[in-house]
């Protein structure tokens, strides 16, 4: 008697939980959610949302797109990976390491820019990169900073064994630099600019020396995109309309850049300085050319090897080939039966051809 009542309660609990889990599937999707976070190359999303461009393009295709800002970049990717969002702004490296390795088939819908000096290795009271040997380096471990450092070390014949890495939160990087024990940091803008303002700081290596390797993209869930190509078209339309305004020298363009700068916590001059170290693909044509170029597979191979060496392709990964990466021409790097990361120029090309 006692037990049967107990079992009943338990069963009710189970029923509630499973009902919770099953309620996700639904009819044709009309409402989409895109997450973005603050970074020079992603500020256009916030502006596009405020200026009504998002609504304009979404209306055109009869859908709604909710553009949500996150304060924490990694959290936004995690939320996307967990399925709470249909798309997110992310770098190529983090896309491969988080959603793709996590089994979420992801498509790079738009390659917006690549870091062209926005990420940098900074030494205190030292002038050249080789002097980093033996130092403790403060950086956000396993981030693009870590990748930049690994690439930089290669150029001077060093490896990660020659230094030690201290995982340091980006929010505290500037304060960390000001403490006497910290002698080397790797970080990104606007923190780079702030740290370089200190007289002791010298930039010894930056992402302009590995052009194209740190890409900032808008990625979307491949299955969602396949079922709803209109989402891809609307997003490409929003992006390249925004690029057109943003890159123009008209008062309207200046106002847009100023608004983006303000949203990023700086002003027009500060934001333009950040854009100067960001290679924006202002036209869809440039982005298509980059996406279809022969250099993309080479870059991607270098990124996946870094991730593999740091155990980020999964703990059972025997080689960097565990995840398949498909390029715009259909070539696949890695496991062809398990493609989880796809580059495509389809939607950017539509924007370039004006067929959206």
């Amino acid at each position, binding site marked *: 008697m006692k037990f049967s009542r107990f079992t009943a309660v338990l069963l009710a609990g189970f029923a509630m*939980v499973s009902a919770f889990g*099953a309620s996700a599937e639904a009819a044709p999707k009309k409402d989409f959610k895109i997450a973005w976070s603050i970074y020079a190359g992603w500020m256009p999303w916030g502006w596009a949302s405020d200026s009504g461009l998002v609504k304009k393009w979404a209306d055109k295709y009869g859908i709604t797109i909710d553009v949500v800002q996150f304060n924490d970049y990694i959290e936004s990717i*995690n939320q996307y990976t*967990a399925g709470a969002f249909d798309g997110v702004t992310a770098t190529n490296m983090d896309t491969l390491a988080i959603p793709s390795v996590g*089994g979420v088939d992801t498509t790079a819908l738009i390659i917006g820019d690549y870091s062209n000096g926005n990420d940098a290795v900074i030494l205190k009271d030292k002038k050249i990169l080789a002097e980093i040997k033996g130092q403790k380096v*403060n950086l956000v471990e396993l981030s693009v900073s870590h990748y930049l450092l690994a690439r930089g070390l290669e150029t001077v014949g060093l490896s990660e064994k020659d230094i030690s890495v201290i995982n340091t939160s980006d929010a505290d990087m500037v304060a*960390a630099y*000001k403490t006497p*024990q910290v002698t080397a940091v790797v970080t990104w803008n606007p923190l780079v600019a702030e740290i370089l303002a200190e007289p002791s700081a010298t930039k010894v290596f930056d992402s302009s020396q590995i052009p194209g390797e740190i890409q900032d993209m808008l990625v979307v869930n491949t299955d969602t995109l396949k079922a709803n190509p209109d989402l891809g078209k609307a997003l490409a339309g929003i992006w390249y309309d925004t690029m057109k305004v943003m890159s123009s020298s008209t008062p309207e363009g200046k106002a847009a850049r100023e608004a983006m700068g303000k949203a990023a916590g700086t002003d027009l001059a500060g934001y333009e300085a950040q854009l100067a170290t960001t290679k924006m693909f202002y036209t869809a044509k440039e982005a298509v050319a980059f996406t279809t170029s022969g250099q993309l597979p080479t870059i991607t191979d270098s990124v996946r090897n870094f991730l593999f060496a740091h*155990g980020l392709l999964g703990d059972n990964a025997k080689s960097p080939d565990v995840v398949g990466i498909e390029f715009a021409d259909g070539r696949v790097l890695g496991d062809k039966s398990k493609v989880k990361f796809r580059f495509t120029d389809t939607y950017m090309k539509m924007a370039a051809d004006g067929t959206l």
Partner: protein
Amino acid sequence: MRRFINRHPDAAIRLLLILLPFVLVIAAYAVASSARLAANPDDKLLPSWTQMQQAVDRMAFTPDRRSGEYLMWKDTAASLTRLGLGIGIATVLGGLLGILQGLIPYARALLSNFTGIVAMIPPLAVLPILFIMFGLGEVSKVVLIIVGILPFIIRDIAQRTGEIPREQLIKAQTLGASTWQITHRIVVPQMLPRLIDSVRLSLGAAWLFLISAEAIAAEAGLGYRIFLMRRYLSMDVILPYVAWITFLAFALDFALRLLQRWAFRWMYRGEGR
């Protein structure tokens, strides 16, 4: 009629009720996890028991591929050292300053308002200052724990000291005891078990500050690993770490309670057990 508040469950029902919330949470997790894994076998958000077991095996019982260390033990040792130092120093200082503040009017005038106000400063908000004063190394992590829990211990002990019956102090004085004798014969023995209570209540905060400090800059530690793994949504590592931290915190609390019972048996005499 027996009112509901007077009804007690018998032993079997009691055990069931104790286990019920645990079982429900575990069952809910198992159902949700298997549902997600059925949809996507590579899902990282709610790993299966096997995945977590493999992660523990990898972190705790297999040397790391790159450094050859057993990461989980290395993290545990690093965190417990910081926590031990922080709590130890805060306990000694808190006991001393608390008794001073509670017993000596001059010390009270000097300290009580100051500690009262300092206790209200959220330590995490002044972190950059701590960094610049104490660097980014071990010292600043230990200092953060101390700054986080010391004011509470001082205030608690000062208040307990103030609650010592006035008659005891007067009686000691009529017997000719000096301030020093009163302190170490009457006040300190009564305050030691209270100090353990105070530390037990501070344990939660101490863990919180430890993990925050490790999230900001570290090379090892339980909090460091959790924040690093969070970058890649490796919940298969994070969840066992959370369970391990919970266990360590529980064990520490239990050990302090045992210490108190063993060392200050007089406190429990009134309970008649």
